[in-house]
Each structure stands twice: as C-alpha cells, then as structure tokens.
C-alpha cells in the first residue's frame, strides 16, 4: 500500500499472481504479454491455460510497444482518493499490432486530454506510479499529426 499526501493508499498488484510478470516487465522497461508457446496466441488478461489449444505452456513475451487507441474515456469524477489530484485523466483501451483484438488498458500521457482521439497511434512508455510500482502507459507516437478519430465508419 502506498500512501498519498492525503493518507489514502492505492491497492497495489498482488504478489505472485498470474499477472505479476506484467509489472516486473514494466519495472525493467519491457511490455510483456502472455503468449501460448504451443500455438502462438497472445492472451490478455493472463490465464492459466490457452483458450485456443488448451496448452498450459504459456510465457510472458516482449511485444513491440506500438499500439492504436481503440477507445477511451476522460475520467471526470474520482472513484479512489489516490487519483484526486490527477483529474481529468484518460483511461484508454489500446490495441496492439501483434494480434487482432489484443488490447491493454492504460492512461494516455504526454498529450493534452482534449487532443486524445480514437485511432491515434501510440507507443508504450513506463511511469512510476508509486515507489513500488511502475506501470506501462501510452503516449502519442512521434510524427502523429493530431488527426481525429481515424477509424470512423465500418
């Protein structure tokens, strides 16, 4: 548990869970996604078995760190006091190029909230949230021209 100035603490990820590799990777500056060694399927959130082939041989695998913003919301109300001083902030679903519909959650950083757009190209960056926890975050990819909602229409 990490105290904020106001005395509130953010629940930190559990020790030794199926997802612990994700945070260890982030601390080392690597975005790791669980992958099936037998069939190659990427799996997120991590699971104890591959849903495609039922293999139990799964391992954290580095990915490119590139992504596309699939959807997002701007949080305007605080639901945990740890985030009080951070409003407004973006919670986004980022689609990774390694596999269709493979997505991770992140905040969009290094970008004014009002400029965030669905479809914007993003890349991973790693930020220390608390002294104990570094998390993957995403920021606009260099060269993004600020264009809007590129994926409109099916």
């Amino acid at each position, binding site marked *: 548990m990490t105290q904020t100035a106001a005395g509130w603490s953010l629940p*930190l990820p559990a020790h030794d869970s199926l*997802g612990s590799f994700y945070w260890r990777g982030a601390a080392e500056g690597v975005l790791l996604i669980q992958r099936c060694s037998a069939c190659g399927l990427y799996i997120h*959130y991590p699971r104890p078995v591959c849903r495609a082939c039922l293999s139990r041989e799964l391992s954290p695998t580095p990915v490119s760190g590139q992504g596309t913003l699939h959807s997002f*919301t701007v949080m*305007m109300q*605080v639901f945990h006091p740890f985030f009080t001083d951070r409003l407004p902030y973006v*919670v986004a679903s980022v689609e990774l190029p390694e596999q269709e519909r493979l997505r991770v959650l992140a905040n969009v950083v290094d970008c004014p909230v009002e400029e965030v757009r669905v479809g914007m190209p993003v890349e991973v960056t790693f930020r220390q949230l608390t002294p104990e926890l570094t998390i993957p975050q995403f920021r606009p990819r260099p060269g993004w021209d600020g264009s809007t909602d590129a994926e409109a*229409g099916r």
Partner: protein
Amino acid sequence: MSQTRVAVVGVGYSTVGRKTTLTWQDLVIEAVSAALDDSGLRPADIDGMTTMGGSVLSDAAMLGIGPLSWFDQDDFGPAFIQPAAQAVAAIQAGQCHTCIAVRVIKKGTFAPAVQSNPLSADGRVGGDLQFCVPYGIGGPWWAALMARRHMVEYGTTEEQFGAHVMAQRRFAALNEDALLRSEISLDEYMASRYICTPIRLLDCDYPCDAGAAVIFTTEERAADLAQRPVFVESYALSASGEPSFENLPDLTNQSPLHSAELLWSRTDLKPQDVDCAQLYDGFTIITFEWLEALGFCNRGEAGAFVEAGNTGLGGSLPVNTDGGACNVGRRHGANFCIEATRQLRHECGSRQVPSAEVALWANAVGFFSGAMLLTRG
C-alpha cells in the same frame, strides 16, 4: 414451443427508496408478499425459488415457501433474467410447477466481484482487476469505452443519448412508482455533469433499495389464478467472451447479439410484432445496443432511431415505459419483467401502450445478457 407453456401470474415490489431502513430480509418479505397477493397464491403453492441477492433457502423457509423441488441462487449473472430464466426452464423441465424469481438489491451494494478479482488479505489486488486499478478506473468507465467506440464507428452523438434520457423520463412522469419524475430538456441533459466522458450523470441508473418478485407457473395452473396470465413466448441467455466489459472482442455489441439471435430462433414472432420493449438502461449505451441487437433498427442506427421519437409514448416502439432504471431505480432488470407483464395486462394507466399484445424485456450487456419475449394471454 413443444415444452410446457409457462405463464407469469404474479408480480410485486417491496417498498423502494433511495435510502430505506429496510434489511435484505425486509425487501424479500415485502416483494414476495406483494407477488403472492397479486397472483392469489399462498406460500405453500410455490415449489421453486430462484434468486439473485438474498439467500434462497433461508428466504424460502422464512416465508413458509415449499417444500422446494427447485432452487437456484446466482450472484454474478446477467441480472434478473438469470433467476427468471432458471425459473422458466425448471417449469418446462418438470422440476417444479410454480417458481418465484426474486431480485433484491441494496443501494450501492453489488454482488460479489468476479471470482478472479480478489482483493487479497494484504489489501493488494489480484486477478484481472490488477490491470485496471492502477489506471484509476471507476464507475461506468467500461460503459464509457463502449459508448465512445459506438460514437466513433457509427456517428452516434451525445444529443442522441440525451434523446433517450428525455424519452424515458417522460414515461417516468406518468409512473407514480418512479423515483425521478420531472421532465428534462436536452439543454438540461447536455448541462448535466460528466462522470466519465461521454457518460453523464443522467445516463446512469439510480441506485436504490429494492426487492422484486415474479411468479411463474404452468399454463394449466395459471388458468385459475387472480390475474390474466401473460405467457413466456421465448427466452434466451448468453455468455460470450471473457468476463470483462472492457476487453470485449467488439466493444459496440457482444452477447446481446447472441441473445437476440437465440431469442428470435425460438419463436415465429418478429421484431415488428413487439408492441413495447423494456431494455436494460444501466447506462444509455446499453439500451442502444439492445435496440440494435434485437433488430428494432440496424447496427449503428439506435441513436437516429431514438432521436426520431420511435421509443417514446405513441412511437413505433415505446421503450422503458416505466421510466427505466434511471428513474424507477436500479432494480437490475426486474422492473422490466414486471413492466412488460403489466403492459400486457393493460393496467398501466396513462403510460399504457394501447392494445399491447407482445412485450420484450432484456437484461445486461457485454459478455453476458439475456432476453424474454412475453405475450398477452
């Protein structure tokens, strides 16, 4: 259907309020008593009980219901369609003849979280939730992801969300049992505060304390009871994909599409036969998804369908005629089953859909959902 025909024969609510002093047991007692009174049945006439919330076996014993030959309690399913579907299926299968389905909910108290999301003893968060909490999630953030994606893919607008909020509030104004009844304008909607964009406070259902109960029985037994029966024409449950709203393969619609496909495959009725629809409105985007999934409009066209006035009183498909959970309070879909039944009994007064013969109600969204089609007996 070749199975036993099942009827809704009794519906009832507890006292409902934003902050009542009622216990869980009080809510169950009041709701079950109201449904029994409505039907003319006595506790000993009931041989099946299904619940979401409460405690099925103690609640049945407490009320003198039984002996039970069927019971089920679910704490993480697609809201009231879960106990309702279990009740109907059990009667069709001959496991019981008269089953009461109950939903009891206290303001701000949710069913236990998904099993894979435990907070461990040291206050740390495991399971899938560990990938969300560090990013400051909260409230309807996942529904906001769905709504934003729907806007981008289909051109849905915030004004269209507002049109839905206004339309169902107009129904609430006609419903004495609704908690929020004053009409709202589009300007008021657009001025209401965001919780997490594009979702505003007025897009959210209204947490309350509420118990609700619905009694199902066979067609044969329904013939002698107090109310004109309403028949279950078709129903469906669906679970589709991983149990996380934010990680759906298709954020704009998932299991409602599957529920709808199953529902229509089990009846000769068509969407155009439906006189009114009661579609889950935990957040506005959910109602939009159901309108599209059920074929009342095409994918992506719910916003325009609503904005054109189709879902209001006198529209081609009145929707959420009790005012919806945004206005009658979050009763987790039980209100939609009860309102559909009351519309088909023609007892809804100034909000009655004239000559309603077919009504549909639908629950939940994302990876789990369900729907039921009812007809006037």
